[in-house]
């Protein structure tokens, strides 16, 4: 009996502990909330102030046409609430002067920093999103080439809400092309908090004018500490992702055996960094394993021969190598450790690291890379030979 009581007490204790972790709660009806889907943060005209654009959903405009008493007015499904203030949180709360409902951040999908704000440093602006329990840590962090406001002011076209579309675009781009990074708030904050690793973010710009204005992902923003220092283009961006092992699907265009371009689809890849200290010099051994298929051939030479495939594999290896080197050159130029070499070194050589830590900015440009790229081709698609009449 005592044993039973003890057991029951233990279980009760566990369950009670579980109950207390359910977090912050109070009752809020859905129609008293305005669901924020995206936030843009820019520098305000007043020095030291921020301008915030919160994209909130207008639920009446979502849903099906047969939505009972609520008749859709046919307007946009979103509304960009804008306000200027000293800090992020105060500005957001201050928005209640313009909007009848409390802003609800749990479904926020993107945070966009304007370029000028990013250049001055973002840590003060990131703090609220990391500290407050409501915003999620899997929000995508982006940097706008111009202002965040103009990115959010575009039309959504396919989707109903631009912020939703941008978030889907960030995901889709990584899943299909892997040319710009996809950074969640938690990763961004981790990189911010690291002494050596440089934060990165997806870069976005608005292309087109007026009605045709479309937000477009244009590269990878590179920060030094919390200040924007430069940008990787798409080629360099993919170079970075090869090393980080974050290339999901991608298309690599190389010259075929007869000089005409061939598209190779990369379907699987991994990257591994192994640091090494050689006579005081830091060498990073990077092992890339990649697998892919032939996806498109604009030439006339059949590709289903061992020679052709070996040639294409060689071409692909070279392409990957040049992309990585380009990214590395850019990183050296910006003196920003976007690859996380410092962390890797610390993990392998914790003792030596103590001495190197403070001089990392000087050491980083002197790092040597040793690339070991294993790129393979598996399939050549449904047809073996090119779609030309000759040669059979």
């Amino acid at each position, binding site marked *: 009996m005592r044993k039973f009581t003890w057991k029951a007490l233990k279980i009760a204790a566990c*369950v009670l502990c*579980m*109950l207390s972790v*359910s977090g912050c*709660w*109070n*009752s*809020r*009806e*859905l*129609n008293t*909330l305005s*669901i924020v*889907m995206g936030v843009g943060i820019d520098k305000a005209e007043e020095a030291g102030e921020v301008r915030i654009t919160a994209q909130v*959903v207008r*639920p*009446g*405009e*979502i*849903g099906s046409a047969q*939505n*009972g*008493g*609520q008749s859709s007015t046919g307007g946009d499904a979103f509304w960009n609430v804008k306000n200027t203030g000293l800090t992020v949180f105060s500005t957001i709360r201050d928005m209640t002067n313009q909007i009848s409902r409390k802003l*609800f951040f*749990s*479904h926020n*999908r993107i945070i966009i920093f304007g370029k000028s704000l990013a250049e001055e440093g973002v840590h003060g602006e990131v703090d609220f999103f990391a500290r407050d329990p*409501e915003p*999620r840590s899997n929000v995508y962090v982006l940097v706008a080439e111009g202002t965040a406001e103009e990115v959010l002011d575009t039309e959504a076209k396919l989707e109903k809400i631009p912020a*939703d579309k941008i978030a889907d675009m960030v995901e889709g781009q990584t899943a299909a092309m892997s040319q710009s990074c996809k950074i969640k708030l938690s990763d961004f904050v981790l990189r911010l908090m690291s002494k050596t690793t440089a934060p990165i973010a997806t870069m976005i710009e608005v292309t087109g004018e007026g009605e045709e204005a479309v937000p477009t992902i244009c590269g990878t923003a590179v920060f030094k500490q919390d200040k924007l220092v430069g940008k990787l283009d798409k080629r360099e961006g993919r170079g970075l992702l090869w090393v980080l092992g974050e290339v999901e699907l991608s298309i690599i265009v190389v010259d075929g055996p007869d000089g005409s371009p061939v598209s190779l689809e990369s379907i699987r890849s991994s990257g591994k960094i192994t640091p090494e200290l050689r006579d005081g010099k830091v060498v990073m051994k990077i092992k890339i394993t990649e697998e892919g298929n032939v996806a498109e051939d604009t030439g006339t030479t059949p590709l289903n021969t061992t020679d052709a495939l070996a040639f294409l594999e060689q071409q692909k290896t070279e392409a990957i190598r040049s992309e990585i080197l380009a990214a590395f050159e850019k990183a050296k130029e910006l003196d920003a450790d976007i690859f996380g070499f410092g962390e890797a070194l610390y993990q392998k050589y914790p003792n030596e690291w103590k001495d190197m830590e403070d001089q990392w900015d000087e050491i980083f440009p002197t790092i040597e890379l040793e690339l070991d790229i294993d790129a393979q081709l598996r399939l050549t698609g449904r047809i073996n030979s090119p779609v030309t009449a000759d040669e059979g």
Partner: protein
Amino acid sequence: MFGYIIKKIRFRKIRNENDAEQGRGAEGDLPAFSEDLEENLKALKLILGKSGDIVLRRFTFGYKNGAEAALLFIDGLVDKSLVHENIMKPLMLGAVPAKETSEGSGIAYIKSALLYVGDLRESASVREAVEGFLSGDTILLVNGSKEALIISLRGWQNRSIEEPLTESTVRGPRDGFTETLRVNTMLLRRKIRCPDLTFETVQIGVRTRTDVCIAYIDGLASPGLIEEIKKRLGRINTDAILESGYIEQFIEDAPFSIFSTVANSERPDKIAAKLLEGRAAILVDGTPFVLTVPTLFIESFQAAEDYYSRPYFASVIRLLRYLAFFISVLAPALYVAMATFHQELIPTPLLLTVASAHEGTPFPSVLEAGLMVIIFEILREAGVRLPRPVGSAVSIVGALVIGDAAVSAGLIGAPMVIVVAMTAVSSFVVPPQTDAGAIMRLSFLILAGMMGGYGIAIGLFAVFVHLASLRSFGTPYLSAVAPFSKRDMKDTFIRAPLWSMRKRPENIAAEDKVRQGTGLTPAPPEPEHQKPEA
């Protein structure tokens, strides 16, 4: 203050005891029969009054001098033609040439040589005679005899054996219990032809004197269980038992729990199966619902058909039943909790849809859900009580009003209708727990409305603790899960193949635990060429 309360309670107790003294049966101490027929008849008349359905037939039969005799029965409870053929006829015709003896009363002779009846007994006790008489026996009194013959030639209008309305199956026997105890015991006896099957009958109810029969298989049911049932039945001191529900409420373990610790069924095959697992059944005359004890929570999720169909689908369906039960209890509460407390838990696209549906609805979600759940319960009750042709009208009106009109009028969000409809359908999947489920549904809804997921967690915790604390005739209500029994898991969430369930349920069967032999897994015969040479 406390003294006053205690005094009050004490007073109550004394008053209750006094109440208990009153309202006993009509007859006090009954005398034995005398030798004089007239006197006996007078005594009986005094007891039985002058109801119109009592038939008294006086006649003379017999040997040399002729004997005065009287036949008493209740019109409608006996098979009259049998009485005429088998009692009156042999007495009036056959008595003449028989042995001319006036030795004793002659009643022994009548019994042993004259009547063509199997089931009869003699008794000197007026009480016994009256009891038999009231349950449909015929009484034969002969002048000069101190004993009456109680002859059982019962026969009355019966509902025929039909398929039960409550637990219909696609595959399985179609017979169901009826209102007559004897027919019900017959149905069980037909299924279990084993001498150990025991029926013990007692009469309960001072005025109704209802036959209540404990059925069990000697050697499977634990003797302690049978003792306990008898003890609890013996405690019942009430004037009427009209349905087995009366018995259930007098003998259950947890009268203040919303969960029932006594199961019931209308299906003889189900009762037979439970008897064979070592349970005891309580059959009550006048109702087709037979009780079984001990009862486990998981029994609610076991259907007779599970065992008749093959194990794979039966297992899937059983898991679905658990799911449906959780949906029926928790779905509205979870919806309300998510919509008013934990919006972050709803996937974004779904949240947007739900939000757009809630746009412009006037009530808070919890009120909306509560109204819908209550309206559904009202519709259900109306549908059950109303005559069948009108019942369908109710459901049409209900479906239109709560389903369509409420949504298009913008009173209720469409997702709420879906949730409540899903809940309603799910609640019919586990019939034994429908009542408890309805109460829990509303309670959880209120908890969720007040405290969100935290409230639901508290509620679930309380329910599980309560369930774990329940006992049914000594067996833990959550048996097989808590206390855990690996063996019984074969028949808890899934239904393992019959050949693998070698033993009876651990917590129920007392002595003979083994149900069947080992190695019963069916397999095709080995091919010829592989056989070792004989």
